[in-house]
């Protein structure tokens, strides 16, 4: 079947098998391999992207369901060569080791921060990222990074 999806601001069209998951449409049809796959039970969150601005595990959605909608992946987070505040914060606070969970963490954190509308406390970040697993970092520096980015994104002082 034919799908047409706006991905990172560009309209992309392709014929896909009806059972194609959004994550494989992104990775294999469009070659956007930044979005990772860590499980087949929608548990790990490695595949998290934004669909119409909301974070979605792209392994739980068919490409067909994204037809006519806007998808943002990790490849679309930096704009005009400027890293997104979350990308900078993950780098600054060592919020990644192998990096496999990182695209999903960044996408999930971005909608978490935007939806909260205020700088996040550690506990809010931990609960908000419940659906994203990381095996390397023990989450400590991920949480630090997300708290710091939330302060920057909501204009709070960069301390604390």
């Amino acid at each position, binding site marked *: 079947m034919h799908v047409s999806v706006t991905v990172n601001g560009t309209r992309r069209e392709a014929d896909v098998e009806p059972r194609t998951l959004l994550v494989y449409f992104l990775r294999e049809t469009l070659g*956007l391999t930044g979005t*990772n796959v*860590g499980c*087949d039970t929608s548990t790990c969150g490695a595949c998290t992207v934004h669909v119409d601005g909301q974070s979605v595990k792209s392994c739980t959605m068919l490409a067909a369901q994204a037809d006519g909608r806007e998808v943002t992946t*990790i490849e679309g987070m930096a704009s005009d060569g400027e890293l997104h505040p979350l990308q900078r914060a993950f780098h600054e606070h*060592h919020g990644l080791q192998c990096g*496999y969970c990182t695209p999903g963490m960044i996408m999930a954190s971005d909608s978490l921060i935007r939806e909260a509308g205020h700088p996040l406390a550690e506990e809010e970040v931990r609960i908000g990222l419940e*659906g994203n697993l990381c*095996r390397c970092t023990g*989450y400590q520096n991920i949480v630090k990074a997300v708290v710091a980015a939330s302060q920057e994104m909501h204009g709070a002082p960069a301390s604390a």
Partner: protein
Amino acid sequence: MAQTAERVVGTEVRRKEDPELITGQARYSDDLAAPGMLWMKLVLSPFAHARITSVDVSPALQVPGVVAAFGGRDLAGEWAGPLPTAWPVTDDLKNPPMYPLATDEVRFQGEGVAVVLAESRAAAEDGAEAVVAEYDPLPVVLDMEEALKDGADLVHADLGTNASYTWTLTNGDVDAVFATAPVVVKERYVVQRQIPAAMEPRALLAEYAPAMGEYTLTTSTQIPHIVRVVLAAFVLGIPESKLRVRAPNVGGGFGSKIRVSPEESLALVLARRTGRPVKWTGDRSSDVLTTHHARDQIQEIELAADEDGRIRGYRTRLIANMGAYLLLVGPGVPLLGAFLFCGPYGGEAYHFECTGVFTNTTPTDAYRGAGRPEATYAIERAIDALARRVGRDPVEIRRMNFLPESDGPIPSPGGLTVDSGHYNGTLDKALELVGYEELRAEQRARRERGDAKQIGIGFSTYIEMCGLAPSRVLGSLKYAAGGWDAARIRVLPTGKVTAFVGVSPHGQGHATTFSQILSDDLGIPVDDIEVVHGDTALAPLGMDTYGSRSLSVGGVAVHRAADRIVEKARKIAAHELEVSEDDLEYVRGRFSVKGAPDRARTIPEVAFSAWTAHNLPEGVEPELDASAVYDPENFVYPYGAHICAVEVDTETGQVDVLRYAAVDDVGTIINPQIVDGQVAGGVIQGIAEALFEEAVYDENGDLLTSSLTNYEVPAASDVPSIRIDKTVTPSTTNELGVKGVGETGTIASPPAVINAVVDALSHLGVTEMARPATPERVWRAIQQAKGGAA
């Protein structure tokens, strides 16, 4: 022109690895594709133990898009030999062959019986579904102790036993010590089976160039060099020079990617047979069955002590679950802990023995810490049991038993020569960091009030041996390879540096750490240094990454190669400045004439001269390039004190970690941020091992914890932030003074957590706690101690 970079060793340089990882530009194995590639899918046995009565692949060949399909017998002629173990720990070890696909019998759920190749992922899946394999179930062996009894059902009938080997080690007169010691405590612990669960499932791409007879394997591995030699020489029977193995970005390993796998073997053979590239990606549900599991020991430990609690002897008996076959280093994993059942404590006699046993379960092998977490668990639990017996405080009993504090080597009861250590130093700092007095006061108050939620404090003063390993020692332990590593440093004509290393990272930040070492050695800015690894066609022969060896072995090779660069550069600089080499002073990348500091040459200047080669001193070859191979004389011995405070709800059995303090001494620190990252990750993994994670089989040998929904890898909301600090006692094993930090967290933390749970309930009479300490287990332990029905 005289430029030297600031000293960067010891500073928090931000990782060079990150830019591609945070933007989605990094390439992991599954991100790769090749023109014309086929998708490979394995058909796995649903039975834990069964005779294969037939495998019919013809229905798969009817599925549109399926190109080829094979049963185990169809490919039996392809193998030069079975997938080998590199660590036959005893001469009489039983080592039944495991082939990439089973032919007659399957011995664990998930063993491959057939393979399908197709034009697409979906067609490969449909094809695998269509294969008809029929089985005759056989009796299933699961319980290790049952497996060792006479008349037990057998995993491998032709062996006549389920025991693979028994390995022993004795120092001192153990029997005499135990016969005369006034106090003997004897404990039994079960270290439950773990699933490593790196976030990236294993994946690969195999290519074959028929005209050249060349194979290229890109695979999610920790050990590209070892994969190359083992696959070429033992499994495929092809010239090693015709196989290139690449590890691209690897999404975590923790030991689980120390593997020479059936899938790698099959993909290479099938790429040759079909003339097309073959791609395979393990989905999580097959990954949990086919990637090795870990731990799974039954431990009996005895301590012989004086009445005041001073330990005189150690005696340990282990049964270690090998699963259905011996994997690459599986039989050797318990040996990595064999010398550490005395922790950092003294004594005069030591005995260790371990029996490796086969069961109808996924084979086991290394997982973060490999053998050392198990050893640490036993001794750190047992020393608490001794403290209870002799009526001492857990802090006191540890202090009185610590090995002598020393900046230099000290022998241990286990027979090791510990490089250096100040054990009270880490313990003092950890007590302060965790707020010990305050926690004890709170504990007393809650006990007095009879609160439902009680507090417990648990200790783990651990030591490990890592930096694997002196080749001579590995040889004496019958490991089939060496433990050295290699580096080659090339200073390019423009003064930029490329370092080629034999270790192969998967998240540890080697490129950053090694760049820091080189930056100080050569005075070149970190950003001007590239580190190349994980490709057998580019890197020097190396021994890859595991056992916290990359810095303490690979990093030392980097440093030594840099020394050789400086040595050569000194000759050229002296020649150009027309002075003798002795008249030159070298400080971070700059040679200057003693007494005339303005007369100088920098490493980049010399590199350019070495490249033009217009005016080199007699006998000096062009190019500024040097190599080093480093084989350590000894292990390195990180140690530390971890203290865990838990809150236990005595009504529900729920355990929450309130505070956790990790004070480690990992020797000299190159990058504190990376070190702390390793500590945090490891500690949380160990807390999860203590509280959540357990691979569970039902009585048929079906893996119940078969996905990330029921095998409980913790999320951020399940775990605490921890407090981290350090002391620094340089290692005497290597000139960098580094000890390694990759495994400290998982080695130290499980006993700290379980000791804390026991401590929280000790006033109720609880002394034993099985792991993981799930609410149900904790609740039952409380009921049992109260004398209720549980």
